[in-house]
């Protein structure tokens, strides 16, 4: 299966990764190889096998609706590169209107 340069750029955009122009060809090759490898699975005869997304057969693991203690605000923001007054700070998302 072939992942072309355009597809590499799209995947990089979705993952918010910047890939230098010179490396795109390399990624295209690697991703194509991975998919070709996984493609071997298509050779398995799955006739009559129901589709599933998990191999765990256990179902219905639920919890009661009882609130428990949360992190303190300090714990919650401890790993944040930037925080202020209990908020996480992130680069501005919305531009000011003129």
């Amino acid at each position, binding site marked *: 299966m072939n992942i072309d340069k355009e597809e590499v750029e799209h995947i990089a955009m979705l993952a918010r990764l910047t890939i230098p122009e010179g490396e795109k060809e390399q990624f295209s090759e690697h991703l194509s190889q991975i998919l070709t490898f996984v493609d071997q699975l298509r050779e398995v005869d799955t006739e009559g096998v129901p589709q599933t997304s*998990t191999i765990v057969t256990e179902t219905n693991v*639920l919890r009661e*609706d009882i609130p428990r203690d*949360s992190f303190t605000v300090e714990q919650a923001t401890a790993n944040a590169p930037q925080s202020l007054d209990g908020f*996480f700070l992130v680069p501005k*998302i919305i531009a000011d209107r003129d």
Partner: protein
Amino acid sequence: MMSYHVVIGVEVHAQLRTQSKLFCSCATTFGHSPNSQTCPVCLGMPGSLPVLNQLAIEMAIRVGLALNCTIRADNHFARKNYFYPDLPKGYQISQYEAPICENGWLEVSSHETAKRIRICRAHLEEDAGKNVHQPRATESRVDLNRTGTPLLEIVTEPDLRSAEDVDAYLRSLREILMYLDVCDGNMEQGNLRCEPNISLRATENDPFGTKVELKNINSFRFVRDAIEYEVRRQSKVLSEGGTIQQETRLWDEVQGQTVVMRSKEEAHDYRYFPDPDLLALNLSSEMIDSIRVTLPELPSSRKQRLIQTFQLPEDDAEILISSKALADYFEACVQLFPHPKTVSHWVMGELLRELNTRNISAQDSFMTPAQLIKLLQLVDQGSISLKVAREIFPELYAGGQNPESFVQEQGLSQVSDEGALMRFIQEVLLNHPAQVSQYQGGKETVLGFLVGQVMKASQGKANPGKVNELLKKALSQSS
């Protein structure tokens, strides 16, 4: 400008009234200090695992059943992937191919006709956090308390044809959610959000046009305003030969217009896939049936019952059922005083006015059904006049007093005593000889004037029925 046919489908996000979040045990209480209700699960920390909240499932089933949906037996959760600062995991856990509720309908009445709006699906998902933008700040602030709060997204087929239809649908849906006790239904607080998809076409037989999704609408009025604006905008574009872009637009309540949401804020490629951290959820028909039997009477059937049992006009029944608490209040009153028309008159009139002024629900009324009925009985027995009852209502309501002792203390009892009334009547007859002879000469309309004079002389306390009766008697005797 050409006139077009409007086609609207609606997505509603209803925040479910659980105590804890959908996949972790953090509290869902509104208004706490930022990031005080978070944990490794809702912060998306590596290695943490989500566990589903049982009550959220039950609530979703309740809504599905009330909306005549099929409840899916095998449920799965999927990841919807996108980046935004209010989404710490980088994905939202939602249901994609397998929504818990499917293929239902809700009957609403719009333009005085009943209309069946098909519900395509209702699925469970977790809410995102909140971004706070301050003008001219170089950063945005993020509060993740809301992250992971359970939402039920309820999606209609494109069955709505006007802003009025959407308004009627939303109101009916909100009533049901509140009757089921699964959502607070407050658009201003954002626990009920409405996102209409609007498209136009030249005739009803044409295929659907390109649709535009509207967001950021936080009141019933803005829903109407935003849809009406968008219909005008699209009509103009099409009339001038333009084409509609498929896009999301935000309602700007200050400017009263919709504006394009910048593509930067959108993500179209969500790469849904089954969430490997969650196990399948199988709902047995026994479980679904056990919830079905606990469903309360829903607004539409309650309305019909009020009309049939109490012979109420449809409009009155509509007002009474608009809140479950108000309908409960009404029925509690009728139990004590079996005159439904009188009771509905007072509940919809004087009581509702006091409740609305204070912006409270009937269940928090300062005046209990028993107190209201005591007042109505005083009128019924002739102890006070209707006029006095109306006048003292606001004070009675605010003070929470017993109507009987209030009337006594204020000396408002109606005078029904014949001796006392006759003294007023004699006085009036003496002072108005001209009108007396007119009456006796056959001009019976003067009676009203004379009754008025007696009422005035008694400072409004005389029992008008009794005055009428005694006055006629006195006039026939003195001739």
